[in-house]
C-alpha cells in the first residue's frame, strides 16, 4: 500500500514576535532537551505567534492543529483513502510532523476529546514514540520533533482542565497580556498605526479587562487590539474600528455593548 505524507514547509521569513519574558530561552532549552512544551494563557496573547517564531528560529517545520471536540484520533494520525483504485495511507498532521522532525503545535488541546488526546502520551514522555495502530506502526520521534500544546486556563469549566497526568509531562510557559508599553509596540507594529493610537487601543484593552467577570468572560485580547488597529490603518475611524473589532467582538449582550460603547468613546 502506498503512503502519502504531506510535505512540510519551513518558515523562511522571521515572524514578528515581541518577547515578553524569558519564554524564548526556556523554549530553546526545552527543545534542546527534547522536552514537550505547554503554553498557558488567554486567547490572543501571542502563543501561536510565539510558536511560529520559535519554529523559524530553530529552523524546523511547523504543523499546527486547532483542536475541537469532533477531532478524532484518525484526524491526528492519518487514515486510509481510496485514490483511483488504490487504497492509500495518508499521514495525519501529527504523524507527518513526527516523520519530518517538525514542531507539532496542538492549539487549545482541552477542546479535543480525552480519548483523542491520549495518543500524545507516549510521545510526550521519555519513550518519544507514536503508535499508529491502524498501520501497526511504531514511529520513534527523531530528535528534532517537538510537541507543543496550548491551553487557556481562563475556562472555568472543570471539564476543560488538563489532567495532571498530561500536564506533568510538559515544560509549562505561562503567557499573559504584555505590559502596556510592549503591547502598544505590538499593536503599532502589527496594526500599522502610530504609537499614540496604539496606546489608546491598549488603554481601551485595559478598561475592558477590568470588566472581566463583571459581565464579560474575557477582556479584549492583544489580537483584538491588533485587529482594531488594522481596521484603522485601512481607513476607518478609531471609534468605528474599536466598536467593530473590539466591542462587538466581545459581547452580544445589549447592556454590555452599551457600556463598551461608553468606554470606547471615553478613550478616543
Amino acid at each position, binding site marked *: 500500500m502506498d503512503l502519502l505524507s504531506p510535505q512540510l514547509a519551513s518558515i523562511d521569513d522571521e515572524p514578528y514576535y515581541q518577547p515578553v519574558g524569558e519564554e524564548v530561552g526556556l523554549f530553546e532549552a526545552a527543545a534542546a532537551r527534547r522536552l514537550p512544551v505547554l503554553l498557558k494563557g488567554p486567547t490572543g496573547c501571542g502563543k501561536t505567534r510565539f510558536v511560529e517564531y520559535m519554529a523559524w528560529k530553530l529552523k524546523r517545520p511547523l504543523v499546527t492543529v486547532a483542536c475541537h471536540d469532533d477531532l478524532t484520533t484518525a484526524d491526528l494520525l492519518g487514515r486510509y483513502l481510496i485514490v483511483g483504485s488504490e487504497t492509500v495511507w495518508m499521514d495525519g498532521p501529527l504523524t507527518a510532523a513526527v516523520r519530518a522532525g517538525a514542531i507539532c503545535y496542538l492549539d487549545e488541546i482541552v477542546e479535543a476529546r480525552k480519548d483523542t488526546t491520549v495518543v500524545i502520551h507516549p510521545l510526550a514522555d521519555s519513550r518519544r514514540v507514536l503508535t499508529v495502530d491502524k498501520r501497526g506502526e511504531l514511529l520513534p520521534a527523531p530528535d528534532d520533533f517537538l510537541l507543543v500544546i496550548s491551553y487557556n486556563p481562563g475556562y*472555568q469549566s472543570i471539564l476543560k482542565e488538563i489532567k495532571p497526568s498530561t500536564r506533568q509531562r510538559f515544560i509549562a510557559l505561562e503567557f499573559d497580556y504584555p505590559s502596556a508599553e510592549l503591547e502598544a509596540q505590538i499593536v503599532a507594529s502589527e496594526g500599522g498605526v502610530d504609537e499614540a493610537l496604539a496606546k489608546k487601543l491598549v488603554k481601551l484593552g485595559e478598561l475592558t479587562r477590568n*470588566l472581566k467577570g463583571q459581565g464579560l468572560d474575557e477582556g479584549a485580547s492583544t489580537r483584538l487590539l491588533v485587529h482594531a488597529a488594522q481596521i484603522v490603518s485601512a481607513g476607518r475611524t478609531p471609534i468605528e474600528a474599536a466598536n467593530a473589532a473590539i466591542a462587538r467582538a466581545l459581547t452580544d449582550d445589549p*447592556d454590555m455593548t452599551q457600556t463598551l460603547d461608553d468606554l470606547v468613546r471615553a478613550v478616543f
Partner: protein
Amino acid sequence: MTDRRLFEHELEERLDRVLFASPSHRSITRLAQSLETLSRRQQDKVLHWAGVAAKTYAEIGYLLATLAPQAFELLDDDGFDAWVIAGLDAYDRQGLRPAMELLRDLEGFRAEREGRALARYADVEARLTRFVHGLSGRPLALRNVGSGNPAWTDTEILFLPDLLAERSSAEDNRRLFKATAALLWAQTRYGTFSVDIDAAIADLPDRPQALAWLTLLEAVRLDARIAQELPGLAREMAELRGPWPDGLAPALPRLQAATATVQDSLALLREFVAAGGVPPRLTFLGTLDPTAARRVRAERIAKETKVLRNALAALKGAGGRKQGGEAVLDIAPGEDGAMEIRVDGDVVALPPEAQAAAQALVQDLGELPPEALSPAGSGGWLPTDLAGPGTDLVNDRDADFRYDEWDYHRSAYRKGWCHVYEVEVKPGDADYVEEVGNRHRALISQIRRRFEAVRGEDRVLGRQPEGEEIDLDAQVDAHIDRRSGIEPSPRLFCRRIRNERSMAAMFMVDMSGSTKGWVNDAERESLIMLCEALEALGDDYAIYGFSGWTRTRCDIYRIKAFGDRYDDAVKRRIAGIEARDYTRMGVAIRHLTRLLAAQPVRHKLLVTLSDGRPDDFGDEYRGTYGIEDTRQALHEARRQGIRSYCVTIDRHGADYLKRMVGPAAYTVLDEVGKLPTKIADIYRRLTAN
C-alpha cells in the same frame, strides 16, 4: 375675610380639623410651625387641599401639608395645584405608595411640568456602574443620595443625586450623570484624598467656602488628568461644562501640569481665599467630604494591609520547601517596577484577593507600605478575615468547600463566603417508595414506555466518504464494480456517530423549612417519577437536597450521586428528604454545578426544584441580594456549559423569577399536586433529541 397670615395656633387648630381622620398623633404643632411663614393665600391652599386629600386618605393629607413649604419653593400656584391633583390621581389609579412617591418627588414633578426631560438615577445606575467598573480597577459602588443633595464620594461609594434635570434633553442629563460619576471616580483615582485635607484647611475660618474652592480647583486638575488618559471622556465633560471661568485663568497652568497633585490645589486654594472671592458655581462638581473619605480610606488601608500580610504569612508557611524551617521570603521591585515576591528564591504569585489588595494599596498610597510587606505573625491566610460581624453561626468542623457569593451592592464577589458541608440524608422509611409506586402504577408504566422510546444508542454509519474504519461491504462492492468495469463509489468508510444523548442531569431539591408538608411530599413523589423515567432513558443523573442556616452552614444533602445506582439505599434517602432550614440558593447551585461540570458528557442539565424565592436567616439574603446571587450562580453554570431549568412552586406567581433565572428557563407551578405528573414531561421536553 382678611388676608392676614395665620399664626401657629390658628393653623394648628385648623389642621386638627381638616386632618381629623389622621390616625397618627404626629406633631401637628411642628407642621403648623412650618406653615406659618407661608403667605395667607398659600396657607389657605394647603388647608384646602390637605382637607380634600384627607377625605380620601389621611396619610396623603398629612404628607401634602408637610411637603407644602418645599413645594411652594419649587412650584408656582398652578404648579402646586397640579402637583396635588397628580398625587390624588396616582392614589386613585395605583394606590397609596405610588401616590406618596409621586408627591415626594417634587424635583421630578417640577422638571416634568416644565417639559424638561430629566434623567433619573435609577435609569442610569446599571450602565454607570459598569462604566465605572471599566474605568477603575477596583470596585466602586454607586448609591443614590436622594434628591437635591450634591454628589460626593467616600472613596468607595459614589453618591449620586436622585435625578438631574439641569439640561433640556434627557440624553444631556444622562451625560451629566456620567460626568458627575467620572469626576468622583477621578477624585479616588488621582489622589484627591491622599492628604489630610481637614488638617490642611483647619486654620481657614470658612470651611464650607474653603471646600467649595478645593472642589473647584481639584476639578480643574482632575480634568487635565482625565484628558491625558481618556480624552474622549474629557471632551464630553468639557462640552457639558463649557470653558473654565476667567477667574481661574491664573491657576490653570499649575493645575494642568502633568505633575500637579492635590497639594497644588491646596496651595492655590489659599490664594483664592485670601483674594476674598466667592467660588463660581459650575455644573456637576459635587462636593467633598474629606472627613468621611479619610475614615473610609484608613479602614480600607488597614484591611488591605492585613489581607496582604496574611497572604504573605501563608506563602511563607506553605511555600517552604527547605527541610525543617520556614521559607525565605524576599520582596523587591522586579524589572518592570512592580513588586515581586520570592519564596526560597522563586517568584510566586499572590492569591487574587491579595493581589487586589496590593493593587488597591498602591492606588491609595502610591507604593506598598513596609508594614504591609511583613508577613503576619502566625496562622494562614483566610479570606474570612474580611468578613464583618454578622449573624453567622460558628461551626465546629471545617467546611468541605467554600464558594464565592455575588454581592450586587458591590458588583463583586465575596470571596470564599459560603461554607458548604456535604452530608448524607438520613434514610427514611424503606416502604415509602414502593407505596408511591403502587399508588402511581399507571403513570409510572406510561413514563417508562415513553422514555424507553427516546433512548438513543451509538450508531455506526456505513458507506461514508471518510471515517475511522473501512466499510468491508462497501469495499467488496467496489471491488466487484472495478472488476466489472464500473466506476466504484468512493464511499468506502464507516463513521461512528456518538449517542447524542450523552447527557447528565442534576436535580437540586429545596429542603428548606417552607417545604414542610405538601411541598415536601410532592418533591419526593416527583423524584420517584423522575428516577423511573431516567432509569428507562439511561441518562446519568444525580439528586441533591439543599438547606442551611446562614452562609457558614450551607448543607448539601447527597441523595443520589452520579454513578450511584437507583437502589434501596437511594430509595430510602429519597424517603428521608425532609423540610429543614433556609434557602440560600446561589451556593447550592455553585456546588452542584461543580459536581455536574465534572461529568464527562456532552450535555449537562441542572434542574432546581424550589418553593419560592431564595431566603436565609438574617435579612441579608432575602430579597434582591439573594435573587441577584442566584442569577449570577446560574450565569456561572451557563458559562460552564450547563443548561439550567428552574421549577418553582409558588401560588402567588413569581414576579422575581424572570430576573432571577437569568439565562435559565423556568416553570412556575401554582399547585404542588401537579409536580409529580409534570416533572417527567418537563425533563423529556428539555432533553428531546
